[in-house]
């Protein structure tokens, strides 16, 4: 008797796509695509003896930004417009004409950049307990934008490319030359918070 070769019947895989569709819809429903975006900040560390950390900063080195409980913005001792805040912060931090009423500069040797004049200015942000979070984020956003633009200008000056196109080392050097010095004032006095 001649033996017939047995062939394995093909597996019916038509339901496979149904199963995978089911999985797909499950993941679509349970997951959220929206990525986490926001303004990153660093809080100053808590210290038990706040008196020791209080460093006297000269008046011309402080840029006071104040938001009161009615969400009114004050800077330079008067009510200010949020649209002007960025340019004012940029002027304060860069001090292009070396005016005496704007922050002092300190010569610092930074690798890749050489001798750079680093501004000693500190932006002091103060808000009331009744300030709305929305305005707070807008102000933080404007200040962040000011620092970002200054860094971009520095990068274009020194490395002939925008900040985002620089290498990691170059970005670090620019970060040192244009430090992000936004200090959130404690309820009493102005402390050097070292906010990054």
């Amino acid at each position, binding site marked *: 008797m001649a033996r017939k070769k047995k062939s394995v019947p093909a597996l019916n895989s038509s339901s*496979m796509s149904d199963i995978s569709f089911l999985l797909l819809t499950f*993941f679509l429903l349970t997951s959220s695509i929206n990525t*986490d*975006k926001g303004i*990153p900040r660093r809080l100053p560390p808590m210290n038990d003896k706040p008196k020791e950390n209080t460093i006297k900063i000269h008046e011309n080195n402080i840029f006071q930004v104040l938001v009161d409980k009615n969400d009114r913005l004050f800077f330079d001792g008067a009510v200010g417009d949020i649209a002007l805040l960025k340019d004012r912060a940029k002027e304060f931090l860069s001090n292009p004409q070396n005016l005496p009423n704007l922050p002092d500069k300190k010569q610092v040797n930074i690798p890749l950049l050489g001798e750079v004049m680093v501004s000693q200015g500190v932006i002091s942000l103060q808000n009331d*307990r009744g300030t*709305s979070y929305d305005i707070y984020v807008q102000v*933080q956003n404007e200040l962040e934008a000011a620092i970002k633009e200054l860094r971009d200008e520095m990068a274009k000056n020194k490395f002939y490319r925008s900040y985002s196109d620089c290498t990691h080392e170059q970005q670090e050097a620019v970060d040192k030359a244009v430090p992000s010095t936004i200090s959130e004032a404690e309820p009493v006095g102005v402390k050097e918070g070292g906010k990054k």
Partner: protein
Amino acid sequence: MAKFTNKEERKVPGMNTSSMSDIIFMFLFFFMVISNMRESTVMVHQNMPKASEIQKLEQKSLVSYIYIGTPLDAKKYGIATRIQLNDQIADLSDIAAFIESERAQRSESERALLTTTLKCDKEVKMGDVTDIKQELRKAGALRIMYAAGKAKKAY
């Protein structure tokens, strides 16, 4: 003479659907990679402020969330601003324990990189946010992020 016409009825051959599942699986993996699981149902109002200078977080596994806003269920929790940690409405004093438990879930090397994202409603007053920030400072969770939506640059 040979017959040229086939007597059998002509049938449209069945479409081969074996690759269909491959395609769907590909979709599935794509969505699994780009999305993050919704880890908890949000029980407070969340209407994020808009900002233009926002950054993406690189590693989602290193983020813990604090939701702040007025409760959706006003009958149960009232209308005052509340904090939500994980899946429940919590108090300020619970934040320290929450940060501790978040840390315990991560390995030693990752703990320093742990970021706390504050998901605040627009209408929240800064007093509440400041209290939370003080709690975070006490707990030593210094890396924070103010969650915000994308806004176009106005100028």
